[in-house]
């Protein structure tokens, strides 16, 4: 049986990001915006399949108009 990753984290490609700010609306637990409107992403690691953080993170990834966000598997 394939092991599930221990945890995931939200990441942003700073070149792709144009500061639309949708991520901060969709995942306020993880994203705040700096004074120029670019996302500051918390280093929070969360379980991939449960909980509201994982849900918001997925919404943010899907909701980014520049597709600059992704979820990365990380060691817990």
């Amino acid at each position, binding site marked *: 049986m394939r092991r599930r990753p221990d945890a995931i984290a939200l990441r942003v490609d*700073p070149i792709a990001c144009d500061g639309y700010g949708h991520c901060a609306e969709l995942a306020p637990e993880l994203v705040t915006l700096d*004074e120029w409107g670019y996302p500051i992403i918390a280093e929070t690691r969360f379980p991939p399949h449960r909980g509201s953080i994982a849900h918001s993170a997925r919404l943010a990834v899907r909701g980014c108009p520049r597709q600059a966000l992704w979820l990365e598997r990380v060691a817990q």
Partner: protein
Amino acid sequence: MTSLEAPPRLLVGNLGRPRTLVEHEQLFGPMTSPGDLLAMLDSSGLRGRGGAGFPTGKKVALIAGERHRHKYVVVNAMEGEPAAHKDRTLLSMNPHLVLDGAEALAHLVGAHEIAVCVARESSKAIDHVERAINERARRGRHHVNVELHTPPGRYIAGEESALVHWLDDNETLPQYRPARPTILRIGRGPVLVDNAETHANVALIARRGPQWFRNLGTLEHPGTNMVSITGGVDRPVVTEVALGTPIRDILAIAGVTQTPRALLLGGYGGTWIDGRHVDTPYDNESLAPIGASVGAGVIVVLPAHSCGIAETSNIARWMANESARQCGPCAFGLPAMASNLADLTSGRGRGTSVIELRERASVIAGRGACRHPDGVIRMVQSALTVFGDDLAEHAKGRPCAMAAHSRFVSVPRLEREDELVWE
């Protein structure tokens, strides 16, 4: 002083012109293919001379381990740092040493293409490289194809991922590399990028062995390092010193005898250190406790009659303009920091400017695709510490008398100032 008396290794025998291939082989001996160059590089302890100081052996092993038919070796002699002149100096004296190193590395990693990159503004260096490449072509041992490339010489163009981007796609923009170390690629072919001085050192290690290389320098940071000394000096010089030489002795070469107010080490994205650290040995291990590193071998001297805030403001403004403007935090953040510094320099700024500056520095750090913003932040933060007294006065609206015309750190004229993204 003993280490200073050691003869230079790279800047040896100045003819006032580049050494020809024949003269080069008379002086250094012919380049023989060494046995296990990778093992030699590892045990020599050579670290990259472009700024980051990554162990060359490790980097080479990474590319050598890649399985691909088309690999590339890049000689980075872009030298976009306004205070650095070492690569051009090296190419004006011993260009074949650099090319020897590049060929040895190409052979080692299995590359058939070497790209020598010199900024298009450095016309003399371009001539030297062209002539050297032609000389070798006439000699006719073509197992590797050596080509000269001349990207536009913006500061960021010398950043390794931007340089590879140029070779791949004619754009001098840094690439985003979430995982490190990353292997840069042209097409799908892995690329080994090293600074020109690193290549020259490889050529000497291949000839004389790792033990010889370790005769100079420290255990952790062996060998020699080329240093560009500018700023408040009688004569700006490029010199070569054994790593571990006290900074005071290095400054003496440029005619600096009095203890300076401060020194900018590494480059414009480097670290200010207080003049009282002038007896610190010049190598990465000794400099680490005071937050500095050898970097690209830049030393800018700030004499007593100067204003560190004004100088820092000047550099920050130029570095902000040199941003590739790909990432928001860098494109907007650096000009914002530069404007805080400009306010503080003129006396318009107050304590809030300092608070804002510190906050912005911590918010921007680590959020660019490349390390450009991080370098500027390091430089600015070290200035806030080293010039703390001055800063307090400036923040009370009392800029020092020198602020208006203190210009020891040379910064090129901004060519695109109207495009600067101010907040």
